[in-house]
């Protein structure tokens, strides 16, 4: 065994430690002691970092050093498949092996039981693997290290979805583990064309980010665009898919979401089949789906699991709810402050009677109620569930009764605010609900200054903004503007499943045919 002695000076070591995060090519030394020193220094002698020295071949001892991070490894794998193998190693190690390849082959083929053994070329890779939960094997006299997959640690299994509940449809949701998540999707689409590409983003967090798409359906331009945008990210940390979303979205100052996110594997699968691209982020159960169009946020995956008439009805209801949630308080303000002539006489008299003795103008009244409601809602999210019911009682009593009886707000306003609140919970997507909440206040201000004319102006500005947005090159309001007639079958109206034979035009341009058979007709022919 030829030892290549390649001693480093103290300064050199220091330099490597300082630069390790920057320079990719800092090499692994042949000296075990030196490597040990560098690794320990880098990790700052952290207590959860464990190293273990093993001597192989008692006659001509070869020093082997194992490194792993306690919390990240799966103890069973480590003990049974790795330590067990190495310690029970018969003295087969032949000192006459000339190259590292021999050793690698030996370890790979005859010794180690773990599923995965990779050769590591430099320090950067070493740290990256170590911190992902691999166990690193360093051998005296070799300038390469080996990483065995002992990744493990805590995982909460496949949970039930919490944010996008549906009645009919699969209940499983994504988890924090990226591998599990991709697996959940792969299990749904058994197509070799489902391609996954991996990125490692975040200088400190080294978060694994993967994009998945179905080759042949997806629009290659969009893939290129996503790839570029992901590669361009330079940031220290990615802690949630929200980071990625903010870093790659198109309209940075728009209240409208241009990237969809979901917890549901079936939604992702459906998106992939339409030609979209999924972005998985390790550590987050929320997976991103691009490109996202405005109408996507009004659709739920459940629509497709039910018959089309129900789906259509629900979609129209949601569209209505969108306007309701955004406009109701504004409309109320405009009607009572500016356009009393538009209210039927009896209703106007009723409103006027309620407003007798209310000290605030309608706008302030609406503002008070809306803000109170937002507070309640926010408090409801944060509070532990045991206190939550108390808050709702207080909310109901304070908002619903006491305030009206005390003459601070009118009961019509309570109705308006509750209507708005209910309507804003209708959307399957939480993103859009937030947008609507923001815009609602803008519309209220416009209504308070210009009545319906103000609302109209706001609407025009909103539309201008909406149509100017793009999501990864696709106009946000497709297929409404630009109007695509064939795609109208799946926007507000959901046509029957066997007629949805094409994929959305702009998103997927290549393979647009979904099913060739017109099912009911085929059945008819059989008869």
């Amino acid at each position: 065994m030829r030892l290549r002695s390649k001693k480093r000076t103290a300064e050199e070591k220091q330099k490597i430690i300082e630069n390790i995060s920057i320079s990719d090519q800092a090499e692994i030394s042949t000296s075990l002691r030196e490597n040990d020193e560098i690794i320990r220094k880098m990790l700052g002698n952290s207590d959860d970092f464990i190293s273990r020295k093993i001597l192989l071949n008692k006659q001509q001892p070869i020093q082997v050093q194992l490194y792993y991070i306690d919390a990240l490894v799966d103890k069973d794998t480590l003990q049974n498949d790795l330590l067990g193998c190495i310690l029970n190693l018969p003295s087969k190690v032949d000192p006459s092996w000339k190259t590292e390849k021999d050793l690698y082959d030996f370890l790979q083929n005859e010794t180690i039981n773990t599923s995965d053994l990779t050769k590591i070329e430099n320090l950067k890779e070493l740290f990256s693997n170590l911190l992902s939960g691999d166990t690193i094997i360093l051998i005296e006299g070799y300038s390469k290290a080996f990483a065995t997959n002992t990744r493990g640690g805590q995982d909460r299994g496949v949970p039930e979805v919490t944010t996008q509940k549906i009645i009919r449809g699969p209940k499983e949701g994504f988890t924090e583990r990226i591998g599990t998540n991709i697996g959940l999707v792969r299990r749904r689409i058994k197509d070799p064309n489902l391609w996954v590409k991996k990125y490692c983003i975040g200088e400190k967090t080294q978060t694994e980010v993967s994009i998945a798409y179905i080759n042949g359906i997806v629009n290659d331009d969009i893939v290129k665009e996503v790839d570029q945008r992901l590669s361009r990210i330079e940031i220290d940390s990615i802690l949630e898919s929200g980071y990625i979303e903010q870093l790659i979205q198109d309209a940075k100052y728009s209240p409208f979401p241009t990237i969809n996110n979901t917890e549901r594997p079936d939604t992702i699968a459906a998106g992939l089949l339409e030609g979209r691209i999924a972005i998985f982020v390790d550590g987050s159960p929320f997976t991103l789906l691009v490109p996202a169009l405005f109408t996507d946020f009004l659709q739920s995956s459940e629509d497709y699991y039910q018959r089309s008439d129900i789906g259509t009805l629900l979609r129209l209801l949601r569209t209505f709810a969108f306007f309701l949630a955004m406009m109701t308080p504004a409309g109320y303000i405009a009607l009572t402050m500016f356009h009393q002539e538009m209210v039927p006489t009896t209703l106007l008299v009723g409103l006027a009677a309620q407003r007798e003795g209310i000290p605030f103008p309608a706008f302030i009244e609406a503002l008070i109620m809306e803000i109170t409601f937002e507070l309640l809602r926010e408090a409801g999210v944060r509070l532990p569930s045991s206190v939550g019911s108390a808050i709702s009682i207080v909310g109901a009593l304070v908002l619903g009764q006491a305030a009206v009886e005390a003459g601070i707000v009118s009961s019509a306003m309570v109705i308006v605010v509750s209507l708005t609140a209910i309507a804003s919970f209708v959307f399957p997507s939480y993103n859009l609900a937030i947008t609507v909440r923001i815009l609602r206040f803008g519309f209220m201000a416009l209504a308070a200054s210009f009545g319906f004319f103000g609302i109209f102006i706001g609407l025009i500005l909103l539309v201008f903004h909406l149509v100017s947005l793009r999501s990864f090159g696709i106009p946000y309001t497709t297929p409404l503007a630009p109007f695509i007639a064939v795609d109208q079958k799946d926007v507000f109206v959901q046509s029957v499943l066997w007629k949805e034979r094409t994929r959305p035009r702009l998103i997927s341009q290549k393979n647009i045919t979904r099913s060739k058979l017109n099912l009911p007709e085929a059945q008819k022919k059989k008869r």
Partner: protein
Amino acid sequence: MDQKISAYQFFILVFMNTLGTAILFIPTHATTYGKENGWITVVFATIFGLLVIAVYNAIFSKEETRSLFVIIDDNFGKWLGSISILFALLFAYFTTFANLWSIGQFVGLHILMGTPPEAIVLLVILTCLVGVRYGIEVIGRASEIFLPFTLISLILLVGLVWPEAQLDNIQPILQTNVAGAFVGIIPVIGITFLELFCLLGVIHRVNNIPQAKKAFFIGGLVAGFCMIIVTFACIAVIGVDGTIRHIYSIYFLGQNISIAEFFERVEGLVAFIWFITIFFKICTNFYFIAIAIKHLGGLKDFRTVTIPIAYFLFVSAVTSLPNIFYDFELMNSTYLVYAILTGFLLPILLLIVKIARKK
């Protein structure tokens, strides 16, 4: 990176531009001249207007990539061309601030009593400014979003007043006032089809010129049809006298709706139709002004001048016209003359020169 619009979007822009001011003023104008035959006046005006559109279409060859301004320059020469463009530009300016003025007046009178028109004009011009700066693509797409609402409102309006219509009111047909009915065509197309000249600045942006020409034609036809229906409804429901007497007779028409004690007081529908259409009209005219100046000054980007133009438009819109009577007189005199010169004579001249050059 030129922005492109589709032929369908162009069709909507034509539709909106034709109806723009027209929907509010046409019933009164046409009936003033044609009396009971007011709606026939509009029928003839539409036919005549389609001829005008045919002239416009003839200016552009099948695979035209040049803009209107380049065509004018190429045919008239640099100097004469520039003067023509300036002439057209001032017309667009005139149209835009007159429209702004009328939106200020209408809102101040019917929607927000007491709000000074200045505030309303300011709000509208700022909104248009946003639209214009986004570019023609966004204007086109926004119009696509609004088209269904406009059409539904229009259908609702006409459908709901129908029970109130008395067909007696439109008689006698073409027995009296025949001369008036024909002369009335001039002021009617003056504020509708001749203003479409401004859309010629946009037509080369359409991704398919032959289809754009078709869209131009169909847009004019559909808009004309809507105007005929509306004028007819006005005369049939509120009578000739009422139509002439009311400044915004279609708004009064909306006030007459009463179905099942629920669909009452929906004249807001009328206001909505009018706002939408005039809004896109102002936007496209504003855009025309900006690109005309861009061409004249040889600028890189038309957005350069949008903000100053907005300032100018605002001040002109609030100061130039003293009252509604003057506006009516203007629409029958100076404005009409100007509209005929730019919207009719200039294109015909251009066409003649073009044909002569070819030979």
